């Protein structure tokens, strides 16, 4: 009985609990609008230590510093773009989860479309060819079938006579 109660409690706790936030209370800005903008920016900035995490969800020290910096810039009156530019000037395009459109990233952006296009063309070519072959074989079948259907008939007709 007690065991079941404990299990229920654990499951409930798991259901109710939310993922821990890396953003600590002392970092939050008083102004909810600015805070919201800071959150949006933080989600687009890569943590340079744990490279697959954004700074909004990272517990790394540098991520915290960058979160504070983002908020500081916003309070100072920077636009979102200015904050991004500030970070890119120091850490490069690598801090952005959305790489910019420029000559060195053309391949990155275009390659998926090109590959999808090639795949599409190849698929279409195969399908069209198959359809054509199918229609052709149906047509031949129809012609053959017609003559073959007649044959046994004539056969049966002619054989008893022979």
């Amino acid at each position, binding site marked *: 009985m007690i065991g079941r109660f404990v299990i229920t409690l654990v499951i409930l706790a798991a259901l109710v609990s939310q993922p821990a936030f890396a953003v600590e209370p002392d970092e939050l800005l008083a102004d909810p609008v600015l805070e919201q903008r800071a959150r949006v920016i933080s989600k687009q900035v890569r943590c340079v230590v744990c490279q697959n995490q954004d700074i909004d969800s990272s517990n790394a020290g540098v991520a915290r510093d960058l979160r504070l910096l983002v908020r500081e810039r916003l309070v100072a009156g920077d636009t979102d773009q200015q904050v991004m530019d500030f970070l890119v000037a120091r850490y490069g395009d*690598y801090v952005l989860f959305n790489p910019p459109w420029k000559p060195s990233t053309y391949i990155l952006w275009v390659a998926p479309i090109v590959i999808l296009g090639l795949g599409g063309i190849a698929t279409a070519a195969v399908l069209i060819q198959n359809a054509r072959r199918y229609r052709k074989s149906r047509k031949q079948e129809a012609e053959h079938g017609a003559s073959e259907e007649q044959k046994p008939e004539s056969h049966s007709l002619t054989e008893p006579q022979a």
Partner: protein
Amino acid sequence: MKRLFALFPITIAGILGAFLLWGLNPDRDPNEIPSVLISQPVPGFDLPPVDGLDTDGLSSTDLVKNDGSAPIVVNVFASWCVPCRAEHAVLTRMVRDEGIRLMGINYKDKPKDARKWLDDLGNPYERIGSDLDGRAGIEWGISGVPETFVIDGAGKVVFRFVGPVLGDEAISRMRTALDQARASGGEAS
């Protein structure tokens, strides 16, 4: 035309294969972030000395106003950083034998700990800036400690090394960068 079309899949497989082979190269480090600082002037910062230590603080003007006699190496370190301890001997030897000017940025370190660390291991640094809140570290675009930069005579960053300067490969890369800094330092002065 049709025969040319037949070569298409092989070509694609070839390109894909080459790409994957490139990805398998053991020398390639996917975690390496290219620094935007290379061949840029040193970032602006101004750090006070470590509290209680009689080594001067460090600011960007100290790095720009180089007499060109020796390349400057900026090393970001902290007493809580274990690899820094290992790297310390290498840097000390470089100061002694290779005539570099070593500047330190003491990153997010308690002055007391930093002083003790330098007492224990020796202080090869000409100047040390105390970066308590890590703001100068952000200006340098560091992702952790230790990191080491080589500055030429014109105050430009020529090289960045992430992690401890340890082992033959790291040291030879440092030497190459130092030669490069010496060469361009001569031009500037």
